[in-house]
């Protein structure tokens, strides 16, 4: 009985110390940002239903393919990644799966006003002559909202289904043109292939360095490699950062990318695979070790009782 009282005292002071230095201290050190559930409430609500056939015509005539590839529709990129980055700062994304990865609301606003949707108006302000490299769509003469809705409907029609989006696909398309993930062998120019000759490998590295130079000039610094981010930042932080980088880091050059809640989950899963690769193994082995420890403790307890029977 006395031992249990002593144990209670030890446990109390241990938990008190733990509470103060971990949950409490961290709540004081870091700003808390609540998730909005990837609803993008600040963007105007959608009012029109789009027609994908008209959308396809609009996308062709609006000149989207002048910068973007749409592999799913057989339209290749007009230039390679390095040259594209030299022209625009960053390689413009392929639009094949944009309809599955990004919220329709976000895409609609993006087409009309990129800097607004991306929340980088502090960097790009048309009035002072600093245009965002993506040219806004000014309309083809009809109802601009209807036209945008049609274009989004087309993008959604060519994209893979939401459930077919894989973690790698979500990360590579939404994040991977700025962020490398070295531990997954991902570079801003794609997965680095295995080369037979060293000179080919070096040639790839040179292209990558050139790409990164453009990116640095565009973003202000090279966006960080995200290999260990799942462990260096917590899941809530990453999720709310993706949702709106400005909430965490006001003034950052990182745009809001507008992914859907599902796509954001996939991105996080990709980061977890990189930084916490063995998490499933850890859970499984942890259960076995716990079972072993409990059985060990029971035997130790019984042995103690047996030995001490003669002592009291």
């Amino acid at each position, binding site marked *: 009985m006395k031992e249990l009282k002593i144990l209670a005292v030890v446990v109390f002071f241990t938990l008190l110390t733990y509470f103060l230095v971990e949950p409490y*201290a961290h709540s004081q050190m870091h700003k808390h940002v609540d998730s909005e559930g990837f609803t993008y409430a600040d963007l105007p609500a959608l009012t029109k239903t789009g027609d994908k056939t008209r959308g396809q015509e609009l996308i062709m005539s609006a000149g989207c393919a002048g910068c973007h590839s749409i592999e799913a529709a057989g339209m290749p990129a007009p230039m390679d990644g390095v040259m594209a980055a030299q022209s625009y700062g960053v390689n413009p994304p392929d639009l094949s799966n944009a309809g599955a990865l990004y919220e329709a609301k976000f895409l609609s606003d993006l087409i009309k006003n990129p800097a607004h949707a991306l929340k980088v108006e502090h960097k790009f302000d048309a009035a002072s002559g600093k245009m965002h490299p993506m040219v806004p769509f000014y309309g083809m003469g009809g109802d601009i909202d209807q036209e945008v809705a049609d274009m989004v409907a087309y993008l959604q029609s060519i994209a893979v289904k939401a459930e077919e989006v894989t973690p790698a696909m979500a990360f590579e398309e939404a994040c991977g043109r700025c962020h490398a993930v070295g531990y997954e062998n991902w570079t801003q120019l794609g997965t680095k292939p295995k080369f037979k000759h060293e000179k080919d490998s070096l040639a790839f590295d040179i292209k990558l360095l050139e790409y990164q130079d453009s990116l640095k000039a565009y973003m202000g610094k090279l966006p960080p490699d995200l290999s260990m981010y799942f462990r260096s930042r917590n899941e809530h932080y990453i999720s709310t950062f993706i949702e709106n980088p400005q909430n965490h880091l006001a003034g950052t050059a990182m745009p809001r990318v507008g992914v859907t809640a599902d796509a954001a989950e996939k991105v996080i899963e990709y980061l977890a695979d990189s930084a916490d690769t063995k998490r499933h193994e850890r859970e499984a082995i942890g259960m076995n070790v716990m079972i072993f420890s409990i059985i060990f403790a029971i035997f130790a307890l019984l042995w103690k009782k047996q030995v001490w029977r003669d002592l009291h």
Partner: protein
Amino acid sequence: MAHFTKATSVKDWLNQRLAVETVEKVMASEYWIPKNINFLWAMGMILAVTFGLLTISGIFLLMYYQPSVDTAFYSVNYTIMREVDFGWLWRHVHGVAASVVFLVIYIHMFTGIYYGSYKKGREMIWISGMLLFVTFSAEAFSGYMLPWGQMSYWAGMVITNIFSLGSLHFDGLVEWIRGDYVPAQAFLNRFFMLHVFLLPLAIMGLIGLHFAALRIPHVNNQDGEEIDFDAEAKKYLAGDTKNSKVMRFANDFLSKDLMVVGLFLIFFFYLVFWHYGFALDPVNFDPADGLKTPAHIYPEWYFLWSYEILRPFPVDIGLVAFGFAQVIFMLLPWLDRSENTVPASRRGKFAIWFWVMLVDMIVLTAMGKLPPEGIFSTIGLVAALLFIAMWIILPFITKNEKKV
């Protein structure tokens, strides 16, 4: 030369050469432990087991770790965490054990203070224990440098800076310790050497001293009773095990040790698999970057109280206070002027001193991590001043303590 006869068994053969039976008696079966002790007396065994876990996991990590500023982070976070089978397990065991070992050390220390186990011939146990605390601290700090993450780098920068001793500006000493102007390759190499060789060696030597210091004064007990160990041992050996006040170390006490260790391991492995974040700081999963200072630099939790004694004061005063905090525990057997070797609960003012000291150190620990702003820095300053004042008044309140 001794006389050797033809051995009748392997045991006899060994006995003639190594006196294994005598050794077994001295170390285990006739090493007498008082019966009236509680589970807090098993902390030593828990520490030994945890040190064992640290050594074994450390050996496995050492097989893949690379002490180079270019590859250290990669070898830990890629090679060990992803490529090596169970590398993640060894790292988590190592990291969590390094943190938990300090929790147990603090429990062990406060147990010693509460029951007065540093008095009347037990001074060397206390001193060797405090030396172990210092070497364990150095071991923990040097190990923290090795993953070469952001916290490794910046903690290394801050702690080595302490050696410039404020206004004395011993900058040359700091450079000598680092082997460079900033933490870099020479720094990493020497802390690697300290962590895997010199400090573990010192710890093992000190553990030997700590155990040896225990032999003659024997283990204290929870009532401060003075036991005639020889008489009680005779009683035990005569078969009166029930009425004897002592028991054998093995298997009597060992069985209880093992029971407590068993319960401890459930707690420990729960932390290893599900709750390791407190021991493996997220900030250290960013690679070291000398051009990017983290928003908050703080030591691991077990150094926070002494960090908070350094932090609230101007540099020079802070350093003096910090130095005071490092050595003052060592002097406890002489600052406590009372003759009573009994639990604090029976020592009047000392009981109040004990609990205030414990709570003050927890307050210091919390303030050491919180940002030093507003109310937190005021509380931190008051707690640091209280810590110093408490040690200054200790001799006065214990001098006139009533004899119990």
